[in-house]
């Protein structure tokens, strides 16, 4: 068997799978996006740019997504980073594995059920009641952008903790010791050594969370009370309520394009940061 035949055989299943389940469906979506809605819903073949011209009707959904996805990613990063740092640098090897596993365990309960638990916690008989009990004025938490943000951070925290932990764990502890031996204060050490070294982990974590948030549907639906509307919710409504397959396809195509553009820009930016990191690590 030649090298060529071997490679062909190894690639054939994956290639066929991508073709049938990725290229073909996406092509159908692209074709549908130039079509029209049938009288009772569904799709009627046509060639028109009408669906794309109609995109401003979903501008609010895109705006919400493009606002809450970065904010959610950043919040998850801010909460995850200290924990990942703690696990990688401060915890003894004996406890490290256990504590790390404890970060994933909540992931094994359905995200649906966990989000539902948050309805109770953020609802009138949960945390607001506790706050009132302590003596502060009662506040509304459930069905607000805040409750959606809590759900997002909660749901995606492990995805952020893991890559950062891995990049920090690789970090040579002797570097930190050397730095403090040389009389550097903790914060400069962190900013000049630790943080730059963990940039690949940050980049991976943020990317994972950001991608998932851009298509989010469940968390806003459950914790936003139908008032916080992402592109994902717009898509579900277009296919399951107004049954406008043509317009829904145009929204889907636009979402893909926006994502590819955002992620490409983001990767360029991160690559530049990583390049700087090399300079830092040389010092």
């Amino acid at each position: 068997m030649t090298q060529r035949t071997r490679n062909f055989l190894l690639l054939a299943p994956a290639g066929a799978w991508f073709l049938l389940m990725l290229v073909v469906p996406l092509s159908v979506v692209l074709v549908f996006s130039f079509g029209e809605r049938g009288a009772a819903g569904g799709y009627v073949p046509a060639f028109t740019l009408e669906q794309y011209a109609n995109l401003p009707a979903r501008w609010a959904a895109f705006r919400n997504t493009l606002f809450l996805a970065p904010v959610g990613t950043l919040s998850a990063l801010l909460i995850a980073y200290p924990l990942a740092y703690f696990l990688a640098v401060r915890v003894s090897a004996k406890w490290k594995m256990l504590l790390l596993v404890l970060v994933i365990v909540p992931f094994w309960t359905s995200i649906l059920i966990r989000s539902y638990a948050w309805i109770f916690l953020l609802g009138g008989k949960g945390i607001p009641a506790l706050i009132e009990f302590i003596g502060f004025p009662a506040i509304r938490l459930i069905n607000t952008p805040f409750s959606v943000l809590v759900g997002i951070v909660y749901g995606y925290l492990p995805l952020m903790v893991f890559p950062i932990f891995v990049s920090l764990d690789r970090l040579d502890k002797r570097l930190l010791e050397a730095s403090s031996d040389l009389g550097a204060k903790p914060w400069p050490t962190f900013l000049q050594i630790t943080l730059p070294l963990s940039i690949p982990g940050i980049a991976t974590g943020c990317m994972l969370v950001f991608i998932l948030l851009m298509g989010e549907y469940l968390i806003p639906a459950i914790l936003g009370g139908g008032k916080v509307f992402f592109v994902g919710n717009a898509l579900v409504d277009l296919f399951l309520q107004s049954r406008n397959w043509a317009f829904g396809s145009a929204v889907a195509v636009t979402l893909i394009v926006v994502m590819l553009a955002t992620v490409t820009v983001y990767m360029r930016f991160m690559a530049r940061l990583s390049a700087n990191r090399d300079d830092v690590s040389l010092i």
Partner: protein
Amino acid sequence: MRLYAAFVYLFLYIPIAVIAIFSFNAGRNASDFVGFSVKWYGKALDNPFIMDALKTSLTVALLSALFASVFGAMAAVALQGIRGPVRTAFDALINVAVMIPGIVIGIATLIGLVTIFEQLNPLIDAIWPFASDAPRLQMGKASLVAAHTMFLMALCIIIVRARLAGMDRSLTEASSDLYATPFGTFVQVTLPLIFPAILAGFLLSFTFSFDDFIIAFFVAGSETTLPIYVFSSIRRGVTPEINAIGTMVLGASLFILLIAQTLLRPRKGK
């Protein structure tokens, strides 16, 4: 620092505690605890639809993870030695597959497959040689496994590839210097080295597929997976039965983890 970590763990586990506590609620309502009872566990285990949904979820997750990790590993190994347009095409497909939101995968698969089936079904009817009704292509377990596998395969390729990239090339070179056949080199050197990555891909895929709601919501046809069942129940007003399922799935995962840890613990003196 410790305090902060404790706080984050509290944040992670309070909802889990809420789920577990309400699974022992004697009342019907998931927000008013009226008394202790384990009856919802019995109800959940007796409910044929929950058991069916669990079976469907396990089957789909197992098959998807198997296809994704095996075909993904095969592709990753082949891509390692390839340059040129084939490589470029695959890289692009993998990136697109990973980057597309699940909801778009779900919708695209639905309308893509429904469109294809509409074309093919009359054709099958026409050429069906038997007197009985011709089989109809429709959405179901197979389409769900196919959709999950597509996306998870891309993930597995990335994971195995990262492992291959970190691999010491001198090992394979040494192997072929010693006149090992390419296949022999693969089985004795490469495979053991990438096996942890394949396993990691399999486990990740299984977890994802088992918990996926949004793709299944569009692609599963008449099949009900556990997340779909839970979603439907939530609309009906959650009973503690759902909490009982969640707690049991969590308990089972912990149990498996414990066994795995015991079995995989590195032997002393090695």
